[in-house]
């Protein structure tokens, strides 16, 4: 029996939040029904319970706004204009998107609501909806609102990037709801880079000396084929020497001397001593040819340092690299042009997921 009581208690704790919300929702629904039946007194009684500080159950922001709106509407039906305006203002202050459907509410109610709008100033932006947008043919849509005529400044800027990059989407006088489209480009025409963005709405009332701001955040990502890296610049090891160095010229001379010395060594030292030297005249003739050739080579390379074949080969390699990079750049531009923007709502400033 004791265990059963404990289990019931635990179950009650687990379902408590849902029950609390349901209680508020049920009460609001019942109030709506009374309102529809023009049982204004009962509707007011229930709605006042919802907005009362003593109401024991959880009330969401939407439920509270709804309660204030219907309180205003009910009081307007009762002819209590000032109180109706007060509650309409409370609703507008909490949610600037609050509105009355002209098909459902009376002209008197609509008039009082309009009065509340003029007395209250607030701006709001709807959370950005998730989706995929092809910037070539589609637009990212933002919905903002001001309760009455105001100078609106709607700006999109990156978060966590220094210096911040951004674009002004709207800067003009506006009233009520406004849809603002964004093509995904920055002011300089480049596609906005991936990252977290802030949509800042700042409004200056045209009727009252007051202002209001609001923010909403979203993450922007790219969906496209990976871009190719361009080829790096040709390094020293990838280019031929375009001029003969002093060391190379001396090296030629040393090689020629090596041939001359080799010929003399062979004829004088590698022969059999008993047979005598092998054609010493011939070996010295070759040595002479080698020395003359080496000397001419040394002098020639000192005077003609340019290596036209190497210059041409280097130019060919550079042109080849440039052409390859051009092709890579073209392919990348085609991929960038096909980029699809992936929009995801975000909670606030923070590291993107």
């Amino acid at each position: 029996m004791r265990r059963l009581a404990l289990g019931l208690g635990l179950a009650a704790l687990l379902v408590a939040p849902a029950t609390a919300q349901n209680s508020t929702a049920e009460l609001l629904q019942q109030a709506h029904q009374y309102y529809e039946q023009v049982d204004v007194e009962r509707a007011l009684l229930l709605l006042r319970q919802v907005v009362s500080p003593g109401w024991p159950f959880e009330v969401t922001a939407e439920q509270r706004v709804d309660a204030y709106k219907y309180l205003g509407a009910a009081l307007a039906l009762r002819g209590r204009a000032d109180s109706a305006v007060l509650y309409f203002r409370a609703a507008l202050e909490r949610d600037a998107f609050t509105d009355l459907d002209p098909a459902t509410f009376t002209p008197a109610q609509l008039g009082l609501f309009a009065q509340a709008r003029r007395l209250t100033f607030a701006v709001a932006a709807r959370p950005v909806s998730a989706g995929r947008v092809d910037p070539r043919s589609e637009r990212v849509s933002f919905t903002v609102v001001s309760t009455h005529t105001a100078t609106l400044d709607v700006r999109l800027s990156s978060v966590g990037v220094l210096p911040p990059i951004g674009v002004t989407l709207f800067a003009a006088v506006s009233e009520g709801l406004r849809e603002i489209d964004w093509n995904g480009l920055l002011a300089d025409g480049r596609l906005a880079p991936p990252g977290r963005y802030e949509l800042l709405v700042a409004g200056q009332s045209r009727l009252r000396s007051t202002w209001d701001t609001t923010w909403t955040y979203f993450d922007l990502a790219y969906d496209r084929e990976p871009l190719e890296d361009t080829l790096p610049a040709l390094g020293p090891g990838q280019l031929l020497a375009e001029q003969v160095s002093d060391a190379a010229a001396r090296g030629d001379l040393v090689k020629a001397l090596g041939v001359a010395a080799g010929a003399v060594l062979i004829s004088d030292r590698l022969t059999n001593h008993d047979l005598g030297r092998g054609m010493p005249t011939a070996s010295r003739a070759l040595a002479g040819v080698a020395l003359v050739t080496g000397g001419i080579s040394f002098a020639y390379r000192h005077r003609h340092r340019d290596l036209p074949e190497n210059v041409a080969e280097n130019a060919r390699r550079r042109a080849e690299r440039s052409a390859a990079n051009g092709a890579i750049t073209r392919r990348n531009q085609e991929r960038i042009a096909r980029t699809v923007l992936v929009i995801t709502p975000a909670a606030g400033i923070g590291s993107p997921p």
Partner: protein
Amino acid sequence: MFVCSAVTTPATAQRRFEAAAFVAAVELRVDPGSGVERFSGPMIGGEALMNVGTRWVFAVRVGDGSLTARTPGGPNRDLGEVSAEGRVHAGTGLSFSAGVCRRAYSTELARQRWNTLQLGVEGRLPFLGGAMQAVARGALLPVVAVNGLDHPKTAYSVGTGLEYRLGQGTVGIVYSLERYDFPARAMVRRLEQVSALTVRGALRFGR
């Protein structure tokens, strides 16, 4: 043997042929145990090479010469030679070769045949931006079969020279030496030595 060691060109194409002609000044020194005999004279010949791939070269050569006795008592000799060689390029400027050579010295009285096997290495160093090459080579002759003689104790060939590249052709000049020290027989030791200065021109064909 100076024909065997004539200048060759590294292969760079998939298949390429090369035809060459050479002329050489040759000196033969022989000490049969009774004093040094010296012969010298010209020799001419031809050569055909085939490059297979980028590493292998196969060559055949023929040569013919006439050696005049420069010391009293010895008869003049005619010299004929045919050889075949395979060469593989082991790296930049370095190659290894193996070849066989058949040579004949002929006089009015007799003919002496030499059959040799040579294992050699050749190094090339470019200069003047590759327009010329310095050449050095050496080879051991592990098999030297001469009719009427034993196998020599010492047998090698060495050479050095220059090669000039002129378009599709090359011109080379090489000094070379072959040395044969035969073992003593009946207290008599035979020595032979062939020196040559060879000028060779070659022309490349094919890809």
